[in-house]
């Protein structure tokens, strides 16, 4: 793995390498190099299996991390390729031309995180949500609890007591 990373570093701007376990490494690549980097990994380095493509919302840094989990079935190693993109203008080049399934992942990312992949087939079609009109729900600032409290109503008759508060009320109320 280390050799591969050294090799890749010569051609690409590879950063933040983490050797997570024997057969799994993570690294970060700049957005503008990402697709050629991934293409290179697929076509030259044998990373022919796209395991997942997903995102992590680092809202505090105003960034989305796209994670392309690539697998080399021959060498049996994984490379987690991180691409950090701006959260405000969340857009990334599509890789559906590399893997047919990428289109599904990208469609989901568009819907759940609001990350656009221009040119990806059916990217704007609803995937899981139908008629959703709130912010993309997998963004960290979407509050599921608040949403469900507004959308549904609680079952009547539920009431709980905090043990410490309750004991104060019962045992030493005046203090």
């Amino acid at each position, binding site marked *: 793995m280390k050799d591969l990373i050294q090799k890749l570093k010569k051609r690409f701007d590879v950063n933040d390498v*983490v050797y*997570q*376990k024997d*057969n*799994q490494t*993570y690294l970060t690549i700049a957005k503008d190099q990402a697709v050629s980097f991934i293409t290179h990994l697929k076509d030259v380095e044998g990373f*022919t*299996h*796209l*395991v*997942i493509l*997903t*995102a*992590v*919302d680092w809202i505090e840094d105003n960034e989305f991390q796209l*994670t392309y*989990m690539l697998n080399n*079935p021959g060498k*049996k190693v*994984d490379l*987690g390729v991180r691409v950090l993109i701006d959260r405000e203008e969340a857009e990334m080049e599509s890789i559906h031309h590399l*893997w*047919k*399934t990428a*289109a*599904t992942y990208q469609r989901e990312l568009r819907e759940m995180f609001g990350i656009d992949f221009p040119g990806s087939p059916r990217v704007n079609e*609803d*995937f*899981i*949500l*139908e008629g959703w009109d709130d912010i993309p*729900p*997998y963004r*960290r600032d*979407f509050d*599921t*609890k608040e949403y469900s409290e507004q959308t549904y109503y609680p079952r009547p008759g539920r009431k709980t007591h905090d043990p410490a508060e309750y004991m104060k009320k019962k045992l030493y109320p005046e203090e």
Partner: protein
Amino acid sequence: MTEESKYRDKFPAKNPDGTNKIDLDSHKFIKVWQGPNHPGITGNMSLELDLQGDEVMQCKTHVGYLHRGFEKLMERRRFIQCFPICVRIAVPEPDFNEYCLSASFEELAGIEIPEAAKWMRTLLLEMSRLQSFLMWMGGQAGSFGIGVVGQWTNYARDLVLDRFEEISGGRIYHMHMTPGGVRGLPPTGFENRMEETLQTIEEIMKDVKDTLFDNTIFKKRSIGLGVIKPEMVEPYGITGPNARAAGIPKDVRKDYPYLKYPELDFDVLTAENSDAYTRAELRRQEIHMTIDLIRQIMAKMPQSGDYMAKVPNVLHWQIPRGETYVRAECTRGEYGYYTVTDGSGYPRRINVRGPSYTHAVALMEKMAIDVNIADTAGLMVSLHTYPPEIER
């Protein structure tokens, strides 16, 4: 290309990308929704089919009937509170979720689980494989009209669930693997009851072989249906029996050994020409391999010993920043959890990779084309997909 499709070359017309050009207003097509409530759909999912006559010209997979937002939900749960949630991601195979989730937390937190727990997890995973395959077998037979097989195999599955109930106290959602280990070893006498169950299943599988696999109807309908060519495997992200039946020997248990698989004796089963029949036959063999694996595990597994590592107080447990992807071979292929932690008491992000994500969407949409509508259910089942894991 089949004989008939030659005539269809002229009609329907093709789009530049080779897909069929569908014009509903031409009155030459009919749109049919198969699902979300349909016995041929393995769960809440639907296929939007554009038919010409009784053949599928275009297929679109629709999910979203069972979106529970589990990935997001887990971002708002303490680590220990995730395991009751994750099981529901793939209803018929909760254990792979339990394993991947727990193993990813353990890896990121630097926790090594005891030996007995590793054996126990291996056992649970193989038992889960067994019951899931059995249920699938019934579904595959049923989707081709051979209902009786489902009666038998679901009975067989129930027997495996009895064994799960003994171990974990639950039949469907076992929740027996928790971050740090497992909730217990099998009760006394379990081994005998397990063996009895395995023998019953072997008997039933003989009948299944005679009734389903040596059955003209099944053969006629499944041979040549939904062929997965080896070159489709990578672009469509195909794994598991679907890939193995096409001659690609992918099996996480061998390729990325985990738990106690390195100590078990088994071969990766493969076949040629992945059509519905070959895949079914491969899965039939997998059932026998799983039975064999369970016997091996029972023989090697320790009867006692620690099964839970020391974990911090689960109410305050924080895991340092990190990310990992943990995979396991489920009945349908590669199951995996991509887990990101940020040092807080909650996971930052969990992304679940179920094989159905690729098999039931991009792959199914391609495979359905030119298939007779009567066979779409059989085709779908032959890809062995569980919709809840697509939308999670």
